[in-house]
């Protein structure tokens, strides 16, 4: 029996955790295994957790405006620690201005969720996009 494992990460000094915590609950209720990193984690710590826990999805929540450079850094460290971001879904949620979307996508982000996105949409995205991204690659 396998379960989709999701890492919900708060990276940097941002202290807003309402969204991350509510999302964690809802994902659990949707049948995912959720690992929440807690607040104030560095990009290295998030990457280490992502690799060691071999998660399928990394969800980074940021409302501090520091998504650039912090999100690309997380992805960079995942690679450095031997993980493969191309085999996981990298999602970002928070106050992300539209102009920053291209930069994030370039860095490897698969989905960007602005405030107000229904959680059901995020769940749907994960269920649909994860197999697509893996495209039959055996785990």
């Amino acid at each position, binding site marked *: *029996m396998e379960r989709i494992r999701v890492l919900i990460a708060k990276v940097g000094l941002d202290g807003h955790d309402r969204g991350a915590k509510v999302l964690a609950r809802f994902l*659990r209720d949707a049948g995912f295994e959720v690992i929440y990193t807690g607040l104030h984690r560095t990009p290295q710590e998030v990457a280490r957790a992502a690799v060691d826990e071999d998660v399928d999805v990394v969800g980074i929540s940021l409302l501090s405006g520091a998504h650039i450079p912090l999100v690309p850094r997380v992805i960079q460290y995942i690679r450095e620690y031997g993980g493969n971001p191309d085999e996981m879904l990298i999602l970002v949620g928070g106050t992300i201005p539209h102009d920053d979307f291209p930069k994030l996508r370039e860095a490897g982000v698969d989905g960007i969720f602005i405030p107000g996105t229904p959680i059901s949409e995020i769940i749907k995205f994960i269920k649909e996009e994860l197999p697509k991204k893996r495209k039959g690659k055996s785990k």
Partner: protein
Amino acid sequence: MNVEEIVEGVISGNRRLLARAITIVENEYPESKELMRKIYPRTGNAHVIGITGFPGVGKSTIVSKLTEEFRRRGKSVGIVAVDPSSPFTGGALLGDRLRLDGADVNKNLWLDEKVFFRSMGSRGRLGGIAKKTGDVIKLLDAAGYEKILVETVGAGQSEIGVLEVADTVVVILMPETGDDIQVNKAGILEIGDIFVINKSDLEGAENVERWLKYMLSLDEETVIELSKLSHADDAKIMQKLKWKKPVLRTIADKGVGIKELANEIERHYEVIKKNGILQEKRREKAKLSAIELAVEEIRSEIIKRYKQLLDKEIDPYTLADKIVKEVLKC
């Protein structure tokens, strides 16, 4: 990536491959059997310590402090944290990795090369651990982690799963919450090798300690008496008597009592190594594991082969009889 490469990776300390191996085993992918068979010879070196106790007693703090302490003593530490999966949705909130935050924000266990933390959902298994926790522990063992802490959500009687995997079982209690109830659960007394009263600065710690020591002494006496009456295995009596179960007090979040706890854990390891109990336990575990694996295979075979038979409308007793007769024939 083939199984050989993964096994090589696990043994040579490649974290990423270890993580991947754990996933393969946890999800029971087809390659998991070969994987386990290949790494099995590399196991048996780690000291597996089970940490159990009611929610809220401070298990995660103790796991965190013990990790720090063992690291201070130069040991590498693997941690497996098991959390309950929802019986309805199958989802779970896992692995409070906060356990890796030491008191000193500068000494970060998150990035310590000699610490590996993995969370698991119970995925329907009752008893405090997941079905594959034992195998995951073996992987950490093969990867070279010297101390492996297994944290379960314990409530005494129902959490005997930890016995299947641990060499040393530490039971954590705390004052104030119906101490008598905690202690009276026979299960706790039996499964624990070491007892810890955490948050011992709270009122009621004395009472819990007294009760616990009393119950344990009864336990010992009973064992001696019973052994005189029945034909109990001499070795088993020796086992129970060679190790007098200590009761310790800690204030984990202040770091109080942790050194002593680590000492007792080490001492237990030495004792069971010396008196051969460790070997015996491991043999026993391997035996049970083999039976369980075999039974599971047979089980799925039965479901596969006898599908038609199973779908027929016969009473289960007659049906079982039929199947067993057939199985034993071939």
